[in-house]
């Protein structure tokens, strides 16, 4: 009987040991720690519904996973509370607010996400500002932020905030993928111009094909010239004058206002 009891105890011990081993093995397949929850959409005005906010959070997270860039959104109507500008100039408020917001974002997440872009919308003053920090300061320069702003401006005017936010994430991500030094707003990237060029190329080729369909002229002066018997009797090439035509190089920057040069960030925005 005693013997049996001892056996029973030892079985329990073995079972316990086994269960620990099995549990520890399982633990290998379970993430040690769930990825940190980062809030990227800050709507202080409640203009977005909870569902829309969640959708934007998901979208921003998706693009963070793709690019390692955080695309943040702040919607506010209480800018003066955060303003660093004593003059009360609300246009620069939005810019300064973005910088301050960025700093507090970095503090909250212990500088783990230095590469971020912020869309700050001041609903009251109807002013929006898009800015970039860290890598996104160089990947998206002032010109590119102006382009992003131009893309979302029509929706801003319609007060279509959800579309504005969605479009901002798409556009900011898209422009950040361009090689450095390229102007994505140049005519070369204009789809209508590209279609136009393609149509012109096709038109020229088909015209040449039709004209040459019946055979073409292949003789020239050199076919019949008697080279032994032909010569240049006299010639001169006199330099007369030089004319110089100067054109100032235009920068592609016609938005309402643009970001500050040489500062902690790059950006662009304006009234809508």
């Amino acid at each position, binding site marked *: 009987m005693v013997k049996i009891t001892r056996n029973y105890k030892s079985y329990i011990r073995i079972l316990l040991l086994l269960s620990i081993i099995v549990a520890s093995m399982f633990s290998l397949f379970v993430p040690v720690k769930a990825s940190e929850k980062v809030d990227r959409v800050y709507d202080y005005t409640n203009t977005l519904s909870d569902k829309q906010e969640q959708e934007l959070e998901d979208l921003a997270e998706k693009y963070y996973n793709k690019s390692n860039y955080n695309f943040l959104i702040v919607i506010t109507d209480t800018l003066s509370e955060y303003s660093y500008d004593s003059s009360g100039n609300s246009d620069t408020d939005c810019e300064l607010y973005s910088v301050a917001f960025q700093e507090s974002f970095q503090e909250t997440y212990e500088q783990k996400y230095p590469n971020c872009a912020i869309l700050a919308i001041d609903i009251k003053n109807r002013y929006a500002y898009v800015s970039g920090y860290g890598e996104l300061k160089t990947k998206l320069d002032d010109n590119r932020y102006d382009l992003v702003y131009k893309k979302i401006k029509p929706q801003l005017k319609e007060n279509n905030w959800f579309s504005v936010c969605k479009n901002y994430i798409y556009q900011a991500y898209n422009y950040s993928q361009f090689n450095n030094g390229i102007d994505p707003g140049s005519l070369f990237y204009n789809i209508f111009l590209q279609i136009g060029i393609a149509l012109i190329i096709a038109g020229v080729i088909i015209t040449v094909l039709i004209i040459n*369909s019946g055979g073409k002229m292949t003789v020239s002066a050199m076919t019949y010239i008697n080279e032994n018997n032909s010569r240049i009797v006299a010639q001169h090439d006199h330099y007369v004058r030089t004319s110089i035509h100067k054109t100032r190089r235009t920068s592609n920057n016609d938005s309402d206002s643009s970001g500050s040069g040489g500062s902690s960030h790059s950006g662009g925005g304006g009234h809508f």
Partner: protein
Amino acid sequence: MVIQHKCPSCGADMKFDTASGLLHCESCGYEENIKQMENQAEASENASAGSYDEFLAKTSRNTYSDNSAIQYQCKNCGAVLITDELTTATTCSFCDAPMILGDRLRGELAPSKVIPFKISKEEAEKAFKKWCGKSILLPRDFKKANRLKSITGIYVPFWLFTMHTRGEVNAECTKVRHYSKGDYDITETKYFDVYRDVDLHFDKIPVDASIKMDDKMMDKLEPFNYNELYDFNTPYLAGYLAEKYDYTDKDLYPRIEKRTENYTLDFVRQTMIGYDGKIILNQNIQMKPEDAIYALLPIWMFCYDYQHAEHNFVMNGQTGKIIGKPPISKKNCAAIFVAIAIISFFLIKLIAYMIGGVWVW
């Protein structure tokens, strides 16, 4: 006078053979070298061009009306030849025997040179079909080339002009340079006063002397290889059609003058080297014809029936170059246009992607 070249060994009619360049008897295979034969049409007369003035004196008279009433009879079958007054060589419409109308090739009407056919009828037909099949703009049923109505080998009368020109040309030429300095893009244009005085000789520029032939098509048929420009002799015409000239060399002066002027200016432009822009301010071009040779050049004519309309094509009988106005299929054009547009659009996109690093749609 009808000239028919009979085979000395079997008596059959002999024809010019494109492959060998000899007079060939199809029934017994006998061949005769044309260059060693006497010109039967000319008999004792000299066929060479001589000096230009002499030639002009010879050719400016018109003798067509004298010939129009003459009837020709085939020596083989006795049939009366039906021909227009310009024909100088043909085949009997009854027995298909080659006939050369000797009296229309004599005196002032005597061609001095000829380039014999180098491409046979079979080769011409094959090449034409291949040409039709190759063109992507032609309608599919036209490409088959199965409604080819006739293929005719014809010696077309040409004048080969040798021109001497003296041209003085003043031009304003420019050299353009682009660079940037500071905030500015600078375009620097240097102007030059350029002068050329040239003394040029152009040899044997061909101009067709037949009223029936389309001038533009004939010009496009060039070049002809003058290494095969032989002294004229009637056997070359055996088996082909031939015509005498409608226009004298004098009639063709305006055409050759325009062409020589263009050639002179082309040459002058080529001597202005290293310039980006060339504007001719004034020109003084004097020209003088030094010689005009009456020559017969070989041309294959294709008559094609397509959708109740005749389409004519011509082929250089020496080089095989084909010229004509083919019917263009609008459907094919549209398809090709769309295809090229789509391909170029994607190429532009690809270039944009390679430069920018992003696909932008």
